[in-house]
């Protein structure tokens, strides 16, 4: 089937990213929106827009039937799922396929194979991909879980079987904490994925999170090197970079070959990512495959000169990927900072409200992928990520310097963001040396919380005093500046004098 119009089954930043790719590919884009997103920038950017329902995702962005119906009614021939929401739900991909539409992503069977984490581990082991030691089956009985944990040795990790993005995950360091962790992880998994199944695995101390980007078009399956995403808080990635300081060209080829083998083992097509834990000794373990475009895909795009979303669209249309055959070498360094509406000064708790003003960074080597603009409302219905700030530089040091410059240009008024956290992180010596691992931030609460600079406080105090002084001077004439008699009219004064005669 010829694809001319693509429905984007997502919202916010990634919806806009996909709509832009559609337009560059000469395709029309259909946006879908809930009650909360009618005025969102991505809806304005689309060629057509279909209302899905109420704000809660369970009644809008997660309803398969509504999305398929929206594609039909808008005349779209394909559906791009983005990330999150239904992107890794095999029943969605299958429903799209069964409706005679093209799913811009892997076949439902590949999502299914990788989506069940225990099944995926079995397949990966069979394909010769190294995996983390752990229990292969979902556990719910605390007694069974306890004996499994004992055999693995603490610390262990409780993970949602249907999970991703850190939801439904708990590190357990001693036996006494296991039972409550099972309950809370299962409850979070149920809420996030509609499936409470969790499993256990050995927790590897201080590994780096290094992932390999895959692209497969049914003819070739290639890797586009690594991204390092070790800077995480509560399993949520905050800053990603490509390449990784810990990956040599030889290691890149070994990890890349493992990722390609993993993708081939499930008959993968489209863009996907194999996540690995990389230990200090260079050994690496397959964590999971994300069968979708990822949040941090732009850093790979910048160092390899590839547009991954456009490649996804090409592959969905049955075309070959446009990436040249032969060895690919990363050029320079790219860094992405996730700008979230979380307040570092308040324990990273979500901040909501209206964005009174937004000024995006610009200039050489800066890319701003945003889902919001001035005037938009940040609600609690969806993810806290507002935008992604991505920079490219000749070296890691150059990229860090450029990111600091770009972050200083960013102005967000109305909601708190994690911008101060990123500035502290980029200035940190250990980060600059690349001495990071996935527990880095756990050891560095000083980077997470920070303390205000007294010099800055004095200058802000001066600015506030000047603003208050200006406000008072502006108000004076109307309130108290003039005696009451002066405000009466000359005509009335005249009348009074007449009356006294």
């Amino acid at each position, binding site marked *: 089937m010829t694809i001319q119009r693509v429905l984007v089954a997502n919202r916010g930043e990634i919806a806009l990213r996909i709509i832009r790719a559609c337009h560059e590919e000469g395709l029309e884009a259909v946006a879908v929106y809930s009650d909360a997103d009618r005025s969102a920038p991505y809806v304005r950017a689309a060629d057509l827009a279909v209302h899905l329902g109420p704000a809660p995702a369970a009644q809008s962005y997660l309803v398969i039937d509504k999305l398929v119906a929206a594609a039909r009614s808008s005349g779209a021939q394909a559906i791009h799922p983005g990330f999150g929401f239904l992107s890794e739900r095999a029943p969605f991909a299958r429903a799209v396929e069964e409706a005679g539409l093209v799913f811009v992503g892997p076949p439902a069977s590949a999502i299914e194979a990788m989506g069940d984490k225990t099944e995926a581990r079995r397949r990966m082991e069979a394909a010769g991909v190294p995996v983390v030691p752990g229990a292969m089956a979902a556990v719910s009985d605390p007694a069974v879980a306890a004996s499994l944990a004992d055999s693995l040795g603490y610390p262990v990790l409780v993970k949602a079987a249907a999970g991703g993005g850190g939801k439904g995950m708990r590190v357990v360091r001693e036996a006494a904490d296991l039972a409550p962790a099972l309950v809370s992880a299962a*409850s979070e998994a149920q809420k996030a994925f509609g499936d409470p199944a969790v499993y256990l695995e050995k927790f590897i101390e201080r590994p780096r999170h290094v992932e390999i980007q895959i692209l497969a078009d049914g003819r070739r399956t290639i890797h586009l090197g690594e991204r390092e995403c070790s800077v995480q808080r509560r399993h949520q990635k905050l800053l990603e970079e490509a390449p990784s300081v810990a990956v040599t060209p030889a290691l890149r080829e070994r990890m890349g070959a493992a990722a390609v083998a993993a993708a081939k083992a499930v008959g993968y097509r489209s863009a996907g990512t194999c996540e690995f834990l990389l230990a200090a000794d260079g050994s690496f373990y397959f964590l999971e495959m994300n069968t979708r475009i990822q949040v941090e895909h732009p850093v790979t795009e910048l160092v390899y000169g590839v547009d991954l979303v456009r490649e996804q669209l090409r592959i969905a249309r049955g075309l070959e990927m446009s990436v040249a055959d032969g060895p690919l070498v990363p050029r320079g360094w790219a860094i992405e900072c996730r700008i979230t509406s979380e307040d570092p000064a308040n324990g990273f708790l*979500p901040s909501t409200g209206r964005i009174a003003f937004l*000024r995006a960074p610009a200039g050489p080597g800066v890319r701003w992928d945003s889902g919001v603009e001035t005037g938009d409302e940040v609600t*609690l219905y*969806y993810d806290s990520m507002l935008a992604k700030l991505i920079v490219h530089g000749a070296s890691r040091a150059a990229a860090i310097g450029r990111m600091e410059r770009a972050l200083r240009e960013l102005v967000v008024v109305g909601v708190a963001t994690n911008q101060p956290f990123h500035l502290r992180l980029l200035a940190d010596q250990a980060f600059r040396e690349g001495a990071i691992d996935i527990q880095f931030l756990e050891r560095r609460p000083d980077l997470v919380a920070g303390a205000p600079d007294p010099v800055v406080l004095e200058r*802000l105090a001066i600015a*506030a005093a000047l603003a208050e002084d200006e406000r008072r001077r502006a108000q004076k004439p109307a309130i108290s500046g003039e005696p009451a008699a002066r405000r009466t009219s000359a005509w009335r004064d005249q009348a009074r004098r007449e009356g006294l005669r």
Partner: protein
Amino acid sequence: MRYLVTIADRSFDIEVDGERVVVGGVEHTATLLDGTGTPVRNLLLDGSSWIVPMEPAGRGRWTVMRRGERFDVEVIDERTRHIRSLVGEGKGTAGPATLKAPMPGLVVRVLVAPGQTVAAGQPLLVLEAMKMENELKAPGQGVIAQVLVQPGQATEKGAPLVTFATPE
């Protein structure tokens, strides 16, 4: 005009006379440019240029920002300061301590019951917001007096959740 400016628990004595600003006895030249329709103002302080987004937050109150850090600033004049010192405003709040919702959200689980003694840092309840479960912890040791919410209940920011018994 002379002001007492309080920001992040620090106070500054600032006298403003046109472009002449005296801070703690030290004289500066300062101008604050209009944001031309935006909250982003430009402070020129002794020739140094500072971008300062700010918004009014009520009489004598401003929300001031610097590279994403937000500060609530209070600016009061000498007369107000004098009246406050006579009235003794702001000193010692009576009544039991209360845990308030730091954000709007949904109560997922309540982990404590009235009468229970809790340690500092002990999780009291779990509030869900933006798809994440956030554990709210006891600010200090104490005894739970009342639990004002139940699982499934939506709360507004600042809503009281749990009260602590007043120490005897």
